[in-house]
């Protein structure tokens, strides 16, 4: 005599996959089309736009993974919740070859695909992605020989900027022309600082004795904030300045005015050099 057949066991796995697929189909387009345009660091420069695209891609990839975890967690909590006062051991959990293989293949594929895509972006499309490439950049953007050099000098606790194409004047103000490839030459006179122009998508360490080069092309006029991103002493938090992206004409006028203002100082500044040794040292013991 056979046992009486009960109602068929619900297919929990299928339910979870269906819920997850529906939510992902809704969420991923929302992330790409609605959230994506607002992700940092914006589109103030070509490099920033590339970084925003990268953030959008990674957020879109992340969304179904997070949803899978949340759906699974919620489904389990709702479906398998222990009711009543009795506490019993659940059924033993055993390995499932198919699930494990799928998980390994999927995560490996995602990580490798991101690595390939990230490397391609870094090398081919964003010429360094706004990061410092050291004194001999390998990812040179098109037209790099015509790039406007701007030297960024970090010192405890202030930034100064030299413009070698304009008589090598030095100023506390940072300005650059719109739609012009700029090569930031970042260095330091004392300890390590980090030049971080967030909206421009530029971040480069300022290291004494090193000419750290980062490329950027600003796409809009406006202002941006410069901060130090490397803890450098008492007034580290005060190492911020507002920089400006100007139209070509406004930039030329600004540069001429700065050069004239600095004219009395130029002979003391000495010739433009890619790095400066932290002298004098004789009081440093």
């Amino acid at each position, binding site marked *: 005599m056979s046992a009486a057949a009960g109602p068929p066991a619900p297919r929990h796995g299928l339910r979870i996959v269906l819920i997850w697929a529906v939510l992902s189909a809704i969420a991923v387009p929302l992330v790409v089309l609605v959230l994506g345009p607002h992700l940092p660091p914006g589109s103030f420069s070509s490099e920033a736009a590339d970084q925003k695209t990268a953030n959008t891609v990674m957020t879109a990839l992340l969304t179904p993974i997070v949803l899978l975890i949340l759906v699974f967690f919620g489904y389990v909590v709702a479906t398998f919740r222990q009711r009543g006062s009795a506490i019993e051991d659940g059924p033993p959990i055993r390995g499932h070859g198919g699930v494990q293989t799928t998980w390994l293949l999927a995560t490996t594929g995602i990580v490798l695909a991101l690595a390939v895509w990230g490397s391609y972006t870094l090398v081919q499309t964003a010429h360094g992605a706004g990061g410092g490439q050291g004194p001999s950049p390998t990812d040179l953007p098109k037209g790099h020989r015509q790039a406007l050099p701007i030297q960024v*000098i970090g*010192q*405890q*606790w*202030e930034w*100064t900027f030299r413009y070698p194409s304009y008589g090598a004047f*030095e100023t*506390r103000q940072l300005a650059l022309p719109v739609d012009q490839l700029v090569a930031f030459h970042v260095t330091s*006179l*004392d*300890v390590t600082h980090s030049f971080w122009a967030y909206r421009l998508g530029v971040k480069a360490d300022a290291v004494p004795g090193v000419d750290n080069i980062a490329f950027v092309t600003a796409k809009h006029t406006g202002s941006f904030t410069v901060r130090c991103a490397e803890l450098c*002493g*008492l*007034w580290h938090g*005060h190492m911020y300045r507002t920089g400006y992206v100007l139209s070509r004409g406004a930039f030329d006028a600004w540069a001429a005015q700065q050069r004239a203002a*600095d004219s*009395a*100082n130029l002979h*003391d*500044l*000495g010739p433009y050099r890619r790095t*400066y040794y*932290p*002298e*004098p*040292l*004789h*009081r*440093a*013991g």
Partner: protein
Amino acid sequence: MKTGTRLLVVLLGVAAGAALIAYYIVSYLMVTPHAVAATVTGPRQARLTLQTVASFGHKPHQDWVSYLARDSHGTWHHTTVLKVPAHATVHVTIYQYDTATGLRNPFWGRPEGIIGDTMTVDGKPLRELDPDLASHTFAIPDLGVTVPLKGVPDNAKNQCSVAPCTLAQAHTTVTFAFRTGKRGKFRWQCFVPCAAGFILGFGGPMQTLGWMDGTLEVV
């Protein structure tokens, strides 16, 4: 020991530990030198008098370089917290008793952000100082103020080694004026690597409020 008693002991222990940590942190953050106010000399006019010394000459750091500030009664205070009125012209006199170290960045050799972009050194107007002759700077970066301070010659007689120094000792006198705007709190500092014995000349007194760094409270 009963469970309730154990729990009470643990809670009291945790509370005592948290209180000690909070006391340490708050004490650390609250230790700032007292303030010296600029002397008000007229409507929207104030006078600030400072001196720099090569070595403080007293505990806890006898050999540290330092600024001092003078109050309206003529008493010198070992502090770098200064108060000046808002929307006023502040006339500054700095008695500089230290020898020259030289500027690491010659850019700071040009006075900026002061009235007329001109300072006087021992009574003579000056728009630029040889970077090698600078002993210190008085700089308020957020107000755009930078003034290099000329050092006394290395071979000057009667050099001061214990603060406060007197006008009878070797010194240079630097004067300038700057205008304040709205109320606020601004840091000021020296840009010369003048901290003898510290890495790159920028440790110790260069990283400590009350010595070569301070705040300017515009009130």
